[in-house]
């Protein structure tokens, strides 16, 4: 179903439309939060909170009319920021916990863990904004426009951040800090 029609039905709290929205986006929102928070239970609660806020926004007629996914990521992003404000943790410190667990869709023993660790370290060396762009762009698979909408930056700034982030990753690859030729990574890519 087209998103605008789905949102139109959601405005009336149509259960089927809302269930469709939840099924389509909950996992991605959960993954995004989990990578930032590092706690599965907290990530589940916060992802649920994102969807409850969607209902509240619909109720007060301030809900999204277009680009629902970006709206959800935006709310998730704000919740993460609030979470760290409450915890008075530095954002960079939390990002050290990036990729804290082994994903379900990858399993290849020690090599895989090594690759994850390498990726975690490599991405953790990026600036906070660069990390956000890399995660949203290449992990979540969003477009530049969507990433810009979520982070509140123009699309040109997103392109620039992505460019610098990839250049930094490339330098790490060239320096041998990130081994992209591990068998686990290759098997995951194939």
């Amino acid at each position, binding site marked *: 179903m087209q998103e605008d029609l789905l949102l139109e039905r959601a405005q*009336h*709290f149509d*259960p089927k439309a*809302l*269930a469709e929205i*939840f*099924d389509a986006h*909950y*996992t*991605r929102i*959960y*993954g995004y939060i*989990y*990578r930032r928070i590092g706690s*599965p*239970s907290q*990530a*589940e609660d916060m*992802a*649920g909170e994102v*969807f*409850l806020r969607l*209902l509240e926004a*619909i*109720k007060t*007629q301030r809900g999204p009319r277009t680009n629902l996914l970006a709206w959800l990521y935006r709310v998730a992003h704000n919740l993460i920021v609030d979470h760290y404000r409450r915890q008075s943790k530095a954002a960079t410190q939390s990002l050290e916990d990036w*990729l804290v*667990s082994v*994903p*379900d*869709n*990858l399993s290849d023993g020690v090599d895989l863990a090594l*690759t*994850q660790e390498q*990726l975690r370290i*490599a*991405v953790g060396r990026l600036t906070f904004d660069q990390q956000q762009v*890399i*995660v949203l762009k*290449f*992990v*979540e*698979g969003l477009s530049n426009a969507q990433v810009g909408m979520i982070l509140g930056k123009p699309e040109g700034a997103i*392109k620039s951040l*992505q*460019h610098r982030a*990839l*250049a930094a*990753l*490339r330098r790490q*690859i060239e320096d041998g800090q*990130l081994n*992209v030729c591990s068998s686990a*990574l*290759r098997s*995951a*890519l194939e």
Partner: protein
Amino acid sequence: MKPDLDAALESIMRRLEAGETLEQCLAGLEPARAAELRPLVEVTRALAGLRMTPAPAALAAQRQKFLAQAAAYRHEQAQAQENTTLWQQMGAWLARPRWRDAVVAATLTLVLGLALLAGVLRGALWMHQAEVAPSATFVALAGDTATPAATAPMMTPAPQESPTPAPLPTATPLATETPAPVPALSQPTMSPSPTPIIATPTLPAATATPQPTQTPPPVVATVAPTATPAPPTPTPLPPLPTPTDRPERPTPQPTVAPPSATPTREPTVTPTRTKMPGPRMETTPLPTPPR
């Protein structure tokens, strides 16, 4: 890293998503470019493959909670719609962002329009008063001898309207006398007139006045009985006929001019005077100009 490398990377990522293999994507590129792109593609693909998935039980629990909340809101919304009045529905409709601006703009336009209309009406009323005032003043002047204080309020509009200039030139001899009435007024001001300010009834007389423009003669008569000295002392008091103001004054004077009783022109006096105490009024019959 060059910007075109970013574009090439994005292009390859799209092709990979479409189902092509990495080797197929890199095959068409120069060896150096392919070698440059390969590690980046592998890293970004590795990142994409690291998505997290929630535990099925947790996902089901969150889903149920979400749908239960949606059902509660739906029920609430239905009840609210049943209870809302037409006005409330209109208010909610107008409160929507897309209409709010339009409503504000319409309201501002309406307010400005009303303000403009009020200004126009006030101007029209003022003009009307300006037209009426002179005649009223003349009528009043006919009967008055006394208090300038009473005249003062009426005088203010009068000065501009008092069209006297026109008649003045015509009735040459009288025109010279016209100043005389002014002094007459001035003196009353000094002398405490018994009936200083009587406001009301004068206007009716004024309405009738236009014809009695001949009133001048009676004025003279009235002045005599009253204590106020009729004798024209050429004092400069009267503010009425300012030469500059005159231009628009079309109406009253011309009518006054024809009657021979030129002295009646005394424009300066206030209309209120007509209310002069009972005895005076009797003594001074306004209308009949003795010819």
